[in-house]
C-alpha cells in the first residue's frame, strides 16, 4: 500500500508530466491535470494518515533503484553542463563540472562497496511537507489552467507552450515529494537538482530577455547550492560511511562533543539550504523569479523550492544542536528576517513585496532551526505549513489582479474593491492570515518568539532583530490591505463573468483552506507538528529543555484562548459586517476635502481653478531614502557574506 502511495506522490507526477508534454491536446490537459492533482492529494493525505514508515524501495520497474538514481544523477549533471555550455556560462559549467567530479569520486571510490541504505524513511515533518506540496501545489496547478489560457491570450502566442509548462510543473511537484520523502542523500541530491532545473525552465518560460537573465541567475545560484550539497555528501560519506539521513543524525546526536570536522558538512548543507531558500545574499534569484507566470511564482514561494531549503535544515538540525554553528545560523536567519522586511517596506511592486516577505519568513524559520530546541522546531514547522498556504493564496490573487488591471503595483490597486470586490476581499483575507492572530502564521510567530525568549544563546540580538522585523512586517502588509479595499462608494457589487472558473475555484478553495487550517491550528499542532518534533527528539535521544513544545498552547488553557479569540473575532467580524451594511445609502458622504470634494467616476478629488476636476493622488511612504534597494542591498549582502564566511570559515 505504502509503495503505491509513494509511487503516486513521486513517480506519478513525472509520468503525468511526460504525458502532458507528449499530448498537446488542451481538452485532455484540462481533464488530466485536475485528476492527477486529486490523485496526488489523496495519496499525500493517505501517507500522512499512515504516519512515519520505512520503505526499502530497492527496485523500480524491476531495476535496482540505487543504480537508476546514480545514472539519473549523472545524466542530470551532464544536462546542466550542456545547458551551461549553451548559455556560454563558465560559472555554471565550472561548478557543474566540480559537482560531476565530486559525484564520480563519491560513487566510485567512497561508495564502492556500500551497505544498502533505506530508500524512504519519512518522519512527521516529511509527511506534513508532502501534504502541503500536493494540496497547495495542486491547487496552484489547477489555478494555472485558467491563468495560462489568459496569459497566452495576452502574449498572442501562435502555438501554445502550455504542454511544456504543465509538464515541468508536474516534474517539479514530483521532485519536491521525492526530496522530502527519501532518506538516501544521494537520491535527495537528484531531486534537489531537478527542482533547480525545473525552476530554471519555469522562470525562463516566457522567453523574454529579462526572463532569461533571471532564470540564469536562479540557475547559477542554485548550482552553487548543489555544489555545496555534493561537498557535504563527500565529507559525510568520508567521515560516517553512510548517506542515510537517519543514520547520520543518529550518529551525530550521539556525539557529546561535535568536532569541527564533523560539523563542516552540515555547514555546507546550510549553505545549500540558504541558496535554495534564497536567503541573503542569494535573495536576488527569488526576486527575479517573479517575471515568470504567476503559478510559477506561487509554486516557488509557497509549497515548493524555497521550502526545500528549510526542510533540509529542519531535517538536519538535530545534527548540530547546541553548537556555536547553530547560533550563527539563528543569527543569520534573524538578520535575513529584518533585512528583507526593510526591503519589503521600500517596495510598491506587489510581487516583490511578497517575495521579500517570503524570504523574511524563511529567515524566521531558519532562526528557529538555529535556536534548535524542541519548541523552536515546532514553531518552524508551523510557520512552514501556514506560510505555504497564505503565500500561495496571495500570489494567485496578485496574478488574478494583474490580469484584470494590467499592473502589479500596489499604488494601482487603489479602488480595486470597486473593480473586483471578491478578489480584493480574498486578497485582504490572505494578508490578514499572514499578519494577524488567530491565524496560523501568527501562532507560528508567537511560538517562535517564545522559543527564542527561552533560548540559551544570543537571545537578545536575535530578539531585537525579530521585534524590529515584525514591526516592519505590519508596516508593509497593513497599508496594502487598506489600499485593496479602498473605494469612494459606500457599497460595491461584483461584476460577473470576468474570471475563469478554475481561477475562481482555486482562489476560493485556498482561501477556505487558509481559514479552516487556521481554525484547526491547535489540532494541527497537537496531532501533526508536535508528534513530528517529539518523534525526532525521541529517535535521536535529544534532551528537551524543561519546556515542552507548545505547552502554553496545546494545554487546555492555550486551546481555549485560541478558540475564544477565533469565536470572538468571527462573531465580531460578522457583527461589524452587519453593522456596516446597515448604514443607509443616504448617509454616504464624500471624504473631507476642505469643502472642495468632488467625484468623477471612481476618482475622488477637488474642483480646482477654472472649475476643473483635479483627482487627489496620495502615495504610500516607501522610505526609499532609508530602505531603498540600492541603499540597503549592498550593506545587507556584505553583512550576510560575512555571516557565511564565519559559518563555514569558522569551522575550517
Amino acid at each position, binding site marked *: 500500500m505504502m509503495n503505491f502511495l509513494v509511487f503516486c506522490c513521486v513517480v506519478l507526477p513525472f509520468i503525468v508530466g511526460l504525458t502532458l508534454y507528449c499530448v498537446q491536446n488542451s481538452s485532455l490537459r484540462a481533464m488530466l491535470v485536475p485528476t492527477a492533482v486529486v490523485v496526488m492529494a489523496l495519496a499525500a493525505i493517505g501517507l500522512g494518515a499512515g504516519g512515519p514508515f520505512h520503505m526499502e524501495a530497492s527496485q523500480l520497474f524491476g531495476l535496482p533503484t540505487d543504480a537508476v538514481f546514480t545514472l539519473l544523477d549523472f545524466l542530470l549533471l551532464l544536462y546542466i553542463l550542456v545547458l551551461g555550455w549553451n548559455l556560454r556560462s563558465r560559472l555554471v559549467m565550472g561548478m557543474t563540472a566540480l559537482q560531476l567530479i565530486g559525484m564520480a569520486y563519491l560513487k566510485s571510490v567512497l561508495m564502492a562497496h556500500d551497505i544498502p541504505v533505506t530508500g524512504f524513511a519519512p518522519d512527521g515533518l516529511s509527511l506534513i511537507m508532502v501534504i502541503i506540496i500536493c494540496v497547495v501545489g495542486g491547487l496552484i496547478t489547477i489555478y494555472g489552467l485558467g491563468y495560462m489560457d489568459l496569459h497566452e491570450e495576452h502574449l498572442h502566442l501562435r502555438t501554445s507552450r502550455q504542454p511544456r509548462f504543465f509538464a515541468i510543473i508536474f516534474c517539479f511537484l514530483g521532485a519536491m515529494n521525492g526530496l522530502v520523502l527519501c532518506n538516501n542523500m544521494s537520491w535527495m541530491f537528484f531531486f534537489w537538482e531537478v527542482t533547480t532545473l525545473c525552476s530554471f525552465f519555469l522562470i525562463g518560460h516566457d522567453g523574454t530577455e529579462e526572463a532569461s537573465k533571471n532564470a540564469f541567475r536562479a540557475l547559477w545560484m542554485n548550482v552553487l547550492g548543489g555544489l555545496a550539497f555534493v561537498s557535504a555528501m563527500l565529507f559525510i560519506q568520508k567521515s560516517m560511511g553512510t548517506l542515510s539521513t537517519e543514520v547520520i543524525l543518529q550518529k551525530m546526536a550521539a556525539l557529546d562533543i561535535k568536532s569541527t570536522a564533523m560539523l563542516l558538512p552540515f555547514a555546507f548543507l546550510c549553505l545549500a539550504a540558504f541558496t535554495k531558500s534564497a536567503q541573503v545574499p542569494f535573495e536576488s534569484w527569488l526576486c527575479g523569479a517573479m517575471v515568470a507566470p504567476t503559478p510559477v511564482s506561487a509554486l516557488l514561494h509557497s509549497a515548493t523550492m524555497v521550502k526545500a531549503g528549510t526542510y533540509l535544515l529542519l531535517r538536519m538540525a538535530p545534527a548540530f544542536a547546541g553548537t556555536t554553528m547553530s547560533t550563527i545560523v539563528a543569527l543569520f536567519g534573524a538578520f535575513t528576517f529584518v533585512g528583507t522586511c526593510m526591503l519589503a517596506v521600500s517596495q510598491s511592486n506587489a510581487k516583490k513585496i511578497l517575495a521579500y516577505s517570503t524570504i523574511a519568513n524563511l529567515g524566521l524559520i531558519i532562526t528557529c532551526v538555529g535556536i534548535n530546541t524542541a519548541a523552536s522546531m515546532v514553531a518552524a514547522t508551523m510557520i512552514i505549513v501556514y506560510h505555504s498556504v497564505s503565500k500561495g493564496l496571495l500570489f494567485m490573487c496578485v496574478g488574478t489582479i494583474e490580469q484584470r488591471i494590467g499592473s502589479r503595483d500596489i499604488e494601482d490597486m487603489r479602488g480595486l474593491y470597486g473593480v473586483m470586490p471578491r478578489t480584493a476581499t480574498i486578497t485582504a483575507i490572505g494578508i490578514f492570515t499572514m499578519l494577524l492572530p488567530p491565524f496560523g502564521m501568527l501562532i507560528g510567530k508567537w511560538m517562535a518568539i517564545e522559543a527564542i525568549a527561552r533560548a540559551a544563546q544570543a537571545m537578545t540580538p536575535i530578539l531585537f532583530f525579530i521585534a524590529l522585523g515584525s514591526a516592519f512586517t505590519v508596516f508593509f502588509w497593513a497599508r496594502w490591505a487598506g489600499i485593496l479595499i479602498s473605494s469612494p462608494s459606500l457599497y460595491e457589487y461584483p461584476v460577473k463573468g470576468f474570471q475563469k472558473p478554475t481561477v475562481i475555484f482555486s482562489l476560493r478553495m485556498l482561501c477556505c483552506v487558509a481559514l479552516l487550517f487556521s481554525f484547526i491550528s491547535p489540532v494541527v499542532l497537537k496531532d501533526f507538528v508536535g508528534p513530528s518534533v517529539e518523534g525526532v527528539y525521541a529517535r535521536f535521544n535529544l534532551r528537551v529543555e524543561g519546556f515542552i513544545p507548545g505547552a502554553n498552547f496545546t494545554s487546555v488553557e492555550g486551546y481555549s484562548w485560541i478558540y475564544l479569540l477565533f469565536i470572538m473575532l468571527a462573531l465580531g467580524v460578522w457583527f461589524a459586517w452587519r453593522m456596516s451594511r446597515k448604514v443607509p445609502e443616504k448617509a454616504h458622504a*464624500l471624504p*473631507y476635502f*476642505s*469643502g*472642495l470634494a468632488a467625484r468623477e467616476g471612481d476618482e475622488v478629488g477637488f*474642483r480646482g481653478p477654472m472649475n476643473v476636476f483635479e483627482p487627489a493622488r496620495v502615495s504610500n511612504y516607501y522610505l526609499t531614502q532609508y530602505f531603498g534597494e540600492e541603499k540597503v542591498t549592498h550593506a545587507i549582502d556584505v553583512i550576510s557574506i560575512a555571516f557565511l564566511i564565519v559559518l563555514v570559515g569558522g569551522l575550517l
Partner: protein
Amino acid sequence: MGFVENMIKKSRLKSPWIVHFDCGSCNGCDIEVLACLTPMYDVERFGVVNTGNPKHADVLLVTGTVNHRNRHVLKQIYEQMPEPKAVVSIGACNLSGGVFKDSYNILNGAHTVIPVDVFVPGCPPKPEAIIDGVVTALNALAAKMGLGPAPGAALMPGDEDAPKAAAVG
C-alpha cells in the same frame, strides 16, 4: 433606553464641537473667534472643542464675506456636518456683506447659502458676543429637539430688514 436618550439629549448641549470657516474675512473676526479658546475666555469650560473637520463638528462658525467662489465650499462644509447641527454667522461681512454689500462678486450674507441659526454682528464682534452666540445656537438646537422655546430675536436698531432669526449683541 430612556437613560441613554436623555443622556444624548443632555450631552448635545454640553459638548458643542465647533468648526470655523472663514469665507474671506479681514481676519478680524477670526482672531476674535480664536481668542475664545485662550485662557482668558476658555470656551472648553462649556465643552467646546475647536475641530478642524466638519464631520466632527456640531456648530459651524462662519466669518467673512461670502462670494461666488466660496459659496460651494461653505455649502459642502455645512452638508458634511452630520445632524443635528447649528450655524453661527459672525461679523458684519458674513451677516450681510458688510462694507462690501451689493458688490458684484459678493453674496449678501451666509444666510443666502445655508440656513443660519444665530447672527453675531460686529466688526469684529467681541469674544463674549461670540461665546454668547454659540450658547444661543445650543438653545436653538435644544428648541429643534423640543427641549425649550426657540431663542428670541434681539435685533439691533435699524436692522428691520434682517432675516428672521436670533441675533445677539
